[in-house]
């Protein structure tokens, strides 16, 4: 886990180990302190501090009017947030687990994503929807979905997903500050990943929509995001023994999509594997592979491959290790990039 974080750059003397969960909480706190219109609402976000403790201490510091325990109803949470945003507030809502967000889909798709467009720009909705997503934490049914493809398919939403402690802070700050609605996908199995970090240390907050190269290489590009970044970093290290020098691109934002960074990398390496843990069919990888093919066809030495979760409902936790793409599956795909030899 620390591999990815270690690649993010130099640290100042003031930094110390922090988890992604702490960085997210700090981003909420700093946003609320800076802007009195920022309100946090959701189930259990108050006294409990959220089931993952991301909102710990906010109700105490800012009061229950700013960090509100709502009735247990996701459509109601997001629907009331729409009205709050219509009146000039900047709501940040927590959808406790990925699959719990589904009752709020109609509000998200019919209203949150479209309000700016429906009103010809008169009524933008600066809402951040925090969705802890993905598996690998042993959660039972309905606690491990990767739902990003649903959000990506909805024009009007930004879809952001950090993979490092630093990005968790920076991208959440940027999302809350954005006048557009953002679905902020939190890779929950990285909540406890650590890095040397401090919010007081200089943090260059990239605007939403820029991918970053986490590891440079010459022989192929791994394109990934969120929970699969550490897997890809580990695979890249392991591939050195096999003679592969892999580049790793962390997308950070699925919408808008950074075609430039991806295409520049793939044109240079000539080979690409897209890695994510949500299902492959109709998943983000298909879109990304198509975009790469359209832009880099003459540079490609092999088809763009996808390493994704299987096309199955998310499995029971005792079986999830077979479903989640791990280092071996990534390395296997890298081996298959020797296309000429096989065909």
């Amino acid at each position, binding site marked *: 886990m620390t591999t990815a974080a270690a690649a993010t750059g130099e640290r100042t003397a003031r930094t110390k180990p922090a988890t992604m969960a702490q960085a997210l909480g700090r981003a909420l706190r700093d946003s609320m302190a800076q802007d009195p219109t920022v309100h946090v609402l959701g189930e259990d976000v108050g006294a409990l501090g959220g089931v993952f403790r991301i909102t710990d201490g906010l109700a105490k510091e800012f009061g229950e009017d700013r960090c509100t325990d709502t009735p247990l109803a996701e*459509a*109601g949470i997001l629907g009331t947030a729409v*009205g709050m945003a219509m*009146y000039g507030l900047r709501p940040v809502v927590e959808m406790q687990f990925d699959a719990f967000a589904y009752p709020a889909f109609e509000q998200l798709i*019919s209203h949150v994503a479209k309000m700016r467009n429906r009103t010809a720009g008169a*009524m933008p909705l600066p809402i951040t929807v925090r969705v802890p997503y993905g598996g690998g934490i042993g959660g039972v049914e309905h606690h491990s979905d990767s739902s990003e493809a649903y959000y990506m398919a909805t024009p009007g939403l930004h879809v952001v997903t950090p993979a490092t402690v630093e990005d968790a802070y920076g991208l959440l700050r940027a999302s809350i500050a954005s*006048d557009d609605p953002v679905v902020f996908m939190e890779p929950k199995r990285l909540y406890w990943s650590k890095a040397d970090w401090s919010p007081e240390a200089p943090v260059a907050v990239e605007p939403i*929509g820029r991918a970053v190269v986490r590891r440079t290489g010459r022989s192929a590009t791994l394109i990934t995001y969120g929970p699969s970044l550490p897997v890809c970093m580990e695979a890249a290290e392991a591939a050195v023994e096999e003679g592969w020098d892999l580049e790793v691109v962390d997308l950070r934002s699925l919408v808008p*999509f950074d*075609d430039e960074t991806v295409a520049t990398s793939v044109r240079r390496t000539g080979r690409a594997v897209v890695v994510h843990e949500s299902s492959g069919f109709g998943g983000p990888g298909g879109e990304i592979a198509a975009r790469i093919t359209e832009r880099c066809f003459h540079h490609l030495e092999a088809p763009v491959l996808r390493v994704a979760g299987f096309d199955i409902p998310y499995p029971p936790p005792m079986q999830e290790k077979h479903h989640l793409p791990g280092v071996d599956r990534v390395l296997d795909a890298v081996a298959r990039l020797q296309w000429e030899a096989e065909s």
Partner: protein
Amino acid sequence: MTVQELPGAAAYRPAPPPAWKPLTDPAPLLPDPEPYRVLGTDAVADADPELLLRLYAELVRGRRYNAQATALTKQGRLAVYPSSTGQEACEIAAALVLEERDWLFPSYRDTLAAVARGLDPVEALTLLRGDRHTGYDPRAHRIAPLCTPLATQLPHAVGLAHAARLKGDDVVALAMVGDGGTSEGDFHEALNFAAVWRAPVVFLVQNNGFAISVPLAKQTAAPSLAHKAVGYGMPGRLVDGNDAPAVHQVLGEAVARARRGEGPTLVEAVTYRMDAHTNADDATRYRVESEVEAWREHDPIRILERELTGRGLLGDEGIEEAREAADRMAAALRERMNADPVLNPMDLFAHVYEEQTAQLREQAARLRVELDAEQDQHGDEDVEERR
């Protein structure tokens, strides 16, 4: 061996449960068994004659608006129009009880309420004409976009009212929904949030008998829709939805209650949709003419007109005056709606995000090329005409 035979079983006595009492006394929340009425009752004596005359003029105008808009669908000037003919008393009262600073959250059938609140009649129709989703700035008029999905605007009203109260503003939100909409999950969640937060919201259910073709009896098993309020901990009020001063009074009391910080109210207005669901619907397939006839006798304009003429407040001249004013409004609307809206296809990309993404810039450039090619082929004038 049975439990009773177990040694010592007879000696066991469960401890009494901890004390329990209901959170709220339900009795004051329950609606009266009969819809509240003003017209034809003693209550009318307390009604302000000026308000009655204003309601009358607005009802006549509203009826004419519905007729004109329906006619525009036949001429292809509107894609569709869901008429509120028969329900004008609810529409007008909803608009008139609100102060300028308050907010209205209409459904797709409530164009008339938006117009009665002061919105330009043409701006109110852009959704139904099909040139823009919302032809007005919601913030400028404090009217949310006409909402097509059922009941999804109700939580917005709750959130807005809650936010206003947090900011210390003296603002009330009034949200309109039909009888069918009360079956939706968002109706339940909105009422529940509003009651828990004591948000300054008024929910107006226009029970017009049918959700497209499905009658109320197949929609709910509740004693009335107003009775649903008690389950959320807010008062439910039942009112004759065709009795304009009654609807105005009940909504007025609910708005005042909300403004005092006493929380939300659910008002069920019992009314009837005289026209079909929209111009595209065939109401003869699901209701009989005799039922419509019975409601025609209880028409909101007819019953108010009878009251006003009977009390000598309105004569033939006044009736004629109201009709002429309505005709003038309709003629102006017809004339303006006969002009083609000016559309710019490049606007399709203008308001998806604050800043266009690289992907949208690419797509906009593609459309630009198509439009330019079209222009080259047909010449400027022809293309302008075809747009």
